[in-house]
């Protein structure tokens, strides 16, 4: 990908309404190449909607999404993916009746230029097979090569999800709550896995676990009521008065109430 822009991803006054309720109300964000950004915010703040707008699942009502200097708003997901952005999902989203290897191979086919061809055998596509094998080792699923995705454990499925997401070699990766539903030890291992496989890439994650957020991110974007109210380094965000009021306060309160 040629970096024609100084930023990997820009959101300019992005808005999205469902019916009469405006969920995203003028979000602005500029993510530099290679930055790791965690998006945090209270439930219902619009974090997942923001991801859906960026990745093309929904079209924005107004405003711009700019990927590597190119406007991508309103494009279908596959067009956005081909331009170098890939995402994972909060609810595990894999191909349940295909094996681990096949899942990963599906993830790499387009980026290697095989498109819709039916005139070549998969077994002869050495680059695709090698890439899938390599991914399988990276996400530590090489021992489960021929296991159907639906028969994997939850943590393995989450890893496979990441593998499919990074498979196409996109340089902007969006991970929607990658560690949701994992135990502490699994989370820890998983975070280091994410770190390993996203080296050199621009990474955006939605995350609830503050430990993960402060451990993984170079910068934190705080989304409240459909706006990005702060976007800075973890230390600066932690010290930010508005953030404390709007968000961290409620987390503290939750913690004291014995929630998380």
């Amino acid at each position, binding site marked *: 990908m040629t970096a024609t822009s100084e930023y990997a991803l820009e959101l300019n006054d992005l808005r999205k309404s469902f019916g009469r309720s405006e969920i995203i109300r003028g979000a602005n964000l500029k993510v530099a190449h290679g930055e790791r950004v965690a998006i945090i915010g209270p439930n219902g703040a619009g974090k997942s909607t923001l991801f859906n707008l960026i990745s093309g699942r929904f079209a924005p009502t107004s405003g711009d999404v700019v990927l590597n200097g190119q406007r991508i708003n309103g494009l*279908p997901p596959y067009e956005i993916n081909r331009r170098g952005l890939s995402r994972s999902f909060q609810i595990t989203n894999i191909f349940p009746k*295909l094996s681990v290897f096949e899942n990963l*191979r599906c993830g790499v086919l387009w980026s290697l230029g095989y498109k819709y061809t039916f005139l070549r055998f998969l077994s002869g596509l050495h680059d695709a097979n090698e890439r899938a094998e390599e991914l399988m080792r990276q996400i530590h699923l090489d021992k489960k*090569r021929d296991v159907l995705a639906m028969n994997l454990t939850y943590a393995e499925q989450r890893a496979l999800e990441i593998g499919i997401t990074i498979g*196409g070699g996109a340089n902007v990766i969006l991970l929607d709550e990658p560690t949701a539903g994992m135990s502490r030890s699994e989370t820890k291992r998983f975070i280091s896995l994410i770190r390993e496989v996203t080296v050199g890439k621009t990474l955006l994650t939605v995350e609830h676990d503050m430990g993960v957020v402060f451990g993984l991110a170079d910068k934190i974007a705080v989304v409240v009521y459909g706006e990005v109210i702060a976007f800075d380094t973890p230390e600066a965000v932690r010290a930010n008065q508005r953030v404390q009021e709007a968000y961290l306060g409620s987390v503290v309160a939750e913690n004291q109430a014995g929630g998380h």
Partner: protein
Amino acid sequence: MSSNNIQSYGFKPLNLGRIVIWALFALALIVAPLLFKSSLALTMLSQIGYLIIICLSYNMLLGQGGMLSFGHAVYTGLGSFIAIHAMNMAGKGMSIPVSLIPIVGGLAGMGFAALLGWVTTKKSGTTFAMITMGVGELVASMALMLPDFFGGEGGITTNRVYGQSFMGISFGPQIQVYYLIAFYCFVCTAAMFAFTGTPLGRILNAVRDNPERVEFIGYNTQRVRYFAFIIAGFFAGVGGGLATINFEIVTGADSLSVIRSGGYLLFTFLGGATFFFGPIIGAVLLVFASVLLSELSKAWLLYLGLVFLFMVMYAPGGIASLVMLNVRLARFGRLKPLLSCYLGMALTGSVVVLGAASMIEMLYHLQLNAALGPEMEFLHLRVNAEATASWLCAVAVLAVGLGLFELVRRRFVARWHHIQEEIEKEIKRTEAH
């Protein structure tokens, strides 16, 4: 596990096992008419041949793409019509050899699939099913509105013997037609199997499993469905063209009907949509049901419906999945203890069928053949359909059959679970090593 890794690169599409299986398939196609020599058998074999192509092409949509089409007969039927017009043009100077007529049908099926599929494949799931049904009705009703092309109620006839015969092959005798069908059957089956190993074929599986995710790995799911639909349309058309050569007549009311489409769906499902070879079994069953079962009983559609019902409820993977489950057992060397159960279930099951069938037949006789009197023939026995004794007898047979079947079934289920558990343990043991 290490052997697995070595295998992963070295896997060839043409390995020994596959070569053996395909050779056996070819052999079966060649030898079948030599073993079954009656003209009825030859008719049935010819039908099986092209129905294998049609059911496999249907399964490209259903089993591989998750597209529940209710209008597959549109493409086989239109393929048949274009093929028959192409054959009839032979007298008017433009002569296409009979051996290439299936290709003409295939191109026609492909063309119409490209045209109509553009609309149907825009949607997936239930909406797709509804649209295909609508398109099916549309085309079927057009057949009556355009009698010049579709021949109205009488359909269009042809004569497959035209042009120069080549080395004595005129395609007049049925056996020559059979071998033409068998040739296409083998080539098309191989081509469709090859398709499952291509990038488009695999992405089609991914679209079946999770269309939303496919959009996020760079593929336009509509395109994937559309291309698969066109390819399926081609093979459907080839099947239609072969049917034309076989029957020398095509009627719109029959070959384009939604009932015909339903038949392809039903038997593809019965054969098994989850395995590539399932529809082959389905095609064989389709011919046996429509040729033999329909001769045997007026109530054959009722029996067929019941079989379909039980299959959907107890073996949604069709016969192919039942076969593969038992192959798995055999591989672990644990099929033997179940054989007695299978035998028992087959015996007690046939008692149940005997009881139920006698009642159904008596009922049908009373309703449809009342003019012939209450006496009827059932399995070479004279039965009085109005007599209380015959009904009591039938009920008794059914009740005894059900009771015995249930006993054997319980035993079978217990053994089955036991064996499955043992296999799981064995797998765990080998994985641990």
